[in-house]
């Protein structure tokens, strides 16, 4: 671990280095280093070295997300669950727990995930979970995505996204000099990607597959895999997806294919276009300044499951173009800050891990908003910090914890 992992002289709030106190702090430094070296996590002051902008962006997005979730889910939750607070209470609980987890994880040195067999355990565990999901998972619609352990409901594809980021960061950091070779720069990545994406695809979880695939490719690109290989993999993936969609006989084929038709003709009045159509009605109703917080009409059973993937449509309706833009800017700032933190990490693993986590959020947010606005066909991607979903939120906040931890050790000028 580099010496700079814990910033010398960081105050309890980690806000500003006070020049006068620096020498004093430096004196204590060696002792701490010795004592803490063997531990991969240590209870440090929470604010110490933490990147405040990132934390602020996360917390602001989470706060807005919860408010909008409450607004969007209110009617649905009243009519379906007979309790207006059903979704917000559950999500609020996850959020509170998630923020605590994030802060805790931000104190855990990210190298811990890199050391020993940790990466392998995560990878193996994820494969196991994905396989288990296929065998004994819970279905919604026609996709099988969840594993239930009593009251706990886990979506392994969320875990898989993290596993890919972790694995690829590990790979890149191991073989950073040989990334331009096929043996190291393509083969292991391709195999892992094929395995994970294949398992998720087998769940009929198209969005998960797409995210995993795109994330993997992005990391490979950044890691140094040659573009021609990436092009080839892209081609292969395209062929596989095309074949998957065209395999005859099953209902799912029509399900996936019709998304393209819906995308092209969103206003044709039939059951398939309903969600997209209602989403666009909601967005259109918003105008520049929106109909006002809580005033959405489309959430009253018109837009199906407004608390899930299409929550952004309700955001657009209630807060208008201005509100939507503000949220998109917040996401962009988050991405920018994430990339900034990652690039300032001291080692390649940290860089790749931070970039992967950041890109995941950016990718999901961009894709989700594109889906909601019918810019791309509907794939079913949730909006980070906004959409209802316990596992996703916990994973997301946990990942932000890792990013925050990277920030602690990164050469980021703290504000």
């Amino acid at each position, binding site marked *: 671990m580099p010496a700079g992992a814990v910033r010398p002289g960081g105050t309890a709030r980690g806000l500003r280095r006070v020049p006068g106190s620096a020498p004093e702090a430096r004196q204590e430094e060696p002792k701490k280093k010795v004592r803490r070296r063997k531990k991969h996590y240590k209870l440090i002051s929470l604010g110490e070295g933490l990147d405040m902008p990132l934390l602020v962006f996360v917390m602001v997005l989470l706060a807005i997300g919860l408010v909008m979730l409450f607004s969007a889910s209110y*009617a649905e939750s009243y*009519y379906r669950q*007979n309790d207006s607070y059903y979704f917000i209470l559950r999500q609020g609980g996850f959020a509170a727990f998630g923020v605590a987890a994030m802060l805790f994880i931000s104190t855990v040195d990210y190298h811990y995930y890199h050391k020993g067999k940790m990466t392998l355990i995560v990878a193996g565990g994820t494969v196991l979970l994905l396989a288990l999901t296929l065998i004994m998972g819970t279905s919604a619609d026609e996709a099988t995505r969840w594993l239930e352990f009593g009251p706990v409901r886990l979506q392994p594809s969320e875990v898989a996204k993290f596993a890919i980021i972790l694995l690829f960061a590990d790979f890149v950091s191991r073989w*950073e*000099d040989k990334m331009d070779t096929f043996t190291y720069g393509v083969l292991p990545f391709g195999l892992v990607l094929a395995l994970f994406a294949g398992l998720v695809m087998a769940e009929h979880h198209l969005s998960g597959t797409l995210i995993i695939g795109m994330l993997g490719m*992005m990391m490979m*690109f*950044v*890691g*140094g895999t040659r573009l021609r290989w990436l092009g080839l993999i892209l081609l292969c993936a395209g062929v596989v997806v095309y074949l998957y969609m065209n395999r005859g006989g099953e209902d799912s084929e029509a399900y996936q294919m019709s998304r393209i038709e819906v995308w092209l003709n969103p206003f044709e009045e039939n059951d398939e276009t309903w969600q997209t159509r209602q989403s*666009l*009605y*909601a*967005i*259109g*109703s*918003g*105008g*520049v300044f929106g109909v006002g917080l809580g*005033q959405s*009409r*489309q959430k*009253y*059973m*018109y837009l199906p499951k407004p608390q899930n993937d299409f929550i952004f449509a309700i955001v*657009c309706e209630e807060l*208008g*173009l201005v509100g*939507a*833009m503000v949220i*998109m800017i917040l*996401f*962009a700032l988050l*991405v*920018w800050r994430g*990339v900034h933190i*990652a*690039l300032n990490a*001291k*080692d*390649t693993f940290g*860089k*790749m891990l931070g*970039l992967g986590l*950041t*890109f995941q959020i*950016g*990718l999901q*947010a*961009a*894709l989700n*908003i*594109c889906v909601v*606005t*019918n*810019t791309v066909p509907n794939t079913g991607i949730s909006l980070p910090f906004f959409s209802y979903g316990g596992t996703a939120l916990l994973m997301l906040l946990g990942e932000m914890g890792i990013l925050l931890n990277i920030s602690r050790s990164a050469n980021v000028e703290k504000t």
Partner: protein
Amino acid sequence: MAKGTSEKIRRKAITLMCALLVAGFGAAAISLVHWQLIKGEELSAKAMEQSLRSTGLPAMRGTIYDATGTKVLAQSASVWTVVLEPHYLAENENLRRTVANGLSEILELDVQDLYERTGVAGSYYDVIARKVETEVRDRINKFMSDNKIGSGIRLIPDYKRYYPYGTVASNILGFTGSDNSGLEGLEAYYEEELSGSAGRLIAAKNAFGTDMPFEYEQIVEAENGYDLVLTIDETVQSVLEKYLAEGIEKFKIKNGAVAVMMDVDTGGILGLATHPNYDPNDPFTILDENLLKEIEAMPDGEERDEAKSDARYTQWRNKAVSDLYYPGSVYKMCTGSMGIEEGVISEDSLYTCTGSEKIEGMKDAIHCWNHGGHGTTTFREGLCNSCNPWFMHIAGLLDVDLFCRYREAFGFVDRTGIDLPGEAQSLLHSKENMGEVELKIEAFGQNFSITPIQMITASAAVANGGYLVRPHVVDRIVDEDGNIVKNADRSYRRQVVSEETSAILCDILRQNVASGTARGGYVSGYRICGKTGTSEKVDKHNQDLLEDPNARMTYIASYCGFAPAEDPKYALLVFFDEPDDLENGGYTAGNAIAGPIFSAIMQELLPYLGVEVKYDDDEYNEHRDTAAPSVVGMTVKEAVAAMREAGLEYDIEGSGEDEEDWDRYSITEQIPEGGTTVPQNGKVVLFTTGYNVNDVMVEVPDLFQEEMINAVYIAAEHDLQVTINGSRDDDAVVMMQGIPAGEKVKKGTVITLTFGSKVNTDIYTPE
């Protein structure tokens, strides 16, 4: 970590980030601008369109009040229409079962039928019950919340019409159909005023179709209908109906009856009773027993359905407005007015009646009811005798032209314009077609058809100084806040005859009631003007003769008069269509049938209407009742003195019978009460303390059909007194008694007996 790698990563990462932000968020942002700014209004309109449902808000129909302004004759109350929205139920088997079972229990509908109706996907509107009460709605709401049914059943507000007085004034009020629009009577005539205008609620609905708490809610308020305040007084109306029913029962009336009371100065109808009638709360049930019997006797089938439908129309019909009849001798008051007004006769003019008169061009002579002839009489006597030749004589003097002008002036040609639907057009001989025969027969009220409402309006003109008023039943139309929207037109249409002529006629008609042929309508204590009429239904008889050579003539017995004679205020026309003389003891005459009913009605209503009883000398009437002085609270001595002064006999019941005790006791009660009628030669029973209740209570005997001498005797035997209304002819018998037989009353109680005579003073064809 090589520096080169780090730099490569940085470059690529920033490239990727930029690509992601530009491609992802940029595209999304462009989309947003496209949808929200460019297509915003269009999409917003579509969203509105799907989420806004426009619901009709029914306007509350106006209330109908009687003349007192406090009694509600017709009123609307909230009810609910239960609508099924099967689309939201169709897919859920359990839900369908629950809904079908629950609703069938609450609304008493067939379970299987309901179950099937819940299964129609795509249907959002299926009315399963209309006009359910609020209590039932509450049960449905409870059922829905108990079973957590959020959608699929809708309750739509509506109104139902109630008629708190049931059959009272039904033929005036009419009724409304299931769509709340007026179908008969005032409800139909004043449909526009009563109905108001329906509003609309444009509200946001969620995709389940139930209301959502969203600000966009635009209400076009329903404008409730205006209220009607009638000239009809519920008390008057009920009294008219009561006696009409009694008359129909007693005299076996086959074809219905009418009683109309009018304010002669304004034309306001105080009461208008017709029979048969119905309950507007349930207008399709036939109430008249005769009609019902006829229908029940028929075999099932088309004919029976037709008869049933006919019977319904008959009972809904307002006979006073929609039916035509020959006015008969009642019309003589008009013919007489014409003669006096034109100066062709005076009340003292003389004419000799020989019992019949031959008219050129007519095979049979026209008879006076008195075949022996009335001899030479004045016009005054002629009218009091109801002498037909006298009026034929007047018509002859007037000739066709004048007669027709007056006929029109009295309002017999045009409809009266009363504010009730279905007013019939009178049938008269046109001036061109009127020869001597037609003229002279019309002169005494035969062979032309008018409505009862035309007749009473004309009689009001005779009574009120010659002014033809506009009959109406709605006094004013008021809005919700009580502001008057419209007042009835109380002005008169024209002056038909002069006030002098009117005064002469009134005086003659008063004598007619006091001592003439219209004594059937006499009411002790009041001076009443009246004229009897017995219309011969000649046209019907002629038709009957074609089928049956032995067919009997049928009659309409009527009586038209007004009171008080010194300043007529209220006119009353009573008519009974086809009394069954074979069943009722041989009564057909207006004086016998309509007279006593008229008398009983006036007896009960004149005090209510504030017309004072006066027992002064009456130059036309040898019969004189007096009013009892009020002595309650006086000592016996004072009371006795008062009785002696009034020239009345008295009895003392209880302590103080002996003269020496007269100072010690005082009067606690008297019968008849102070100010009420003591019959001629009657007495007042004075009660002090200490009398035995059982000793002074007597049972009223049944005096129906008793001759006058017997009736008086029987009453005296029971320690009761009688006051005599109606006819005083030799053959007169008791037609009505004021207190029903069997009732227990105190000694000395005065029973009003109304007498009727069989003598038909109105007919002109030989019987």
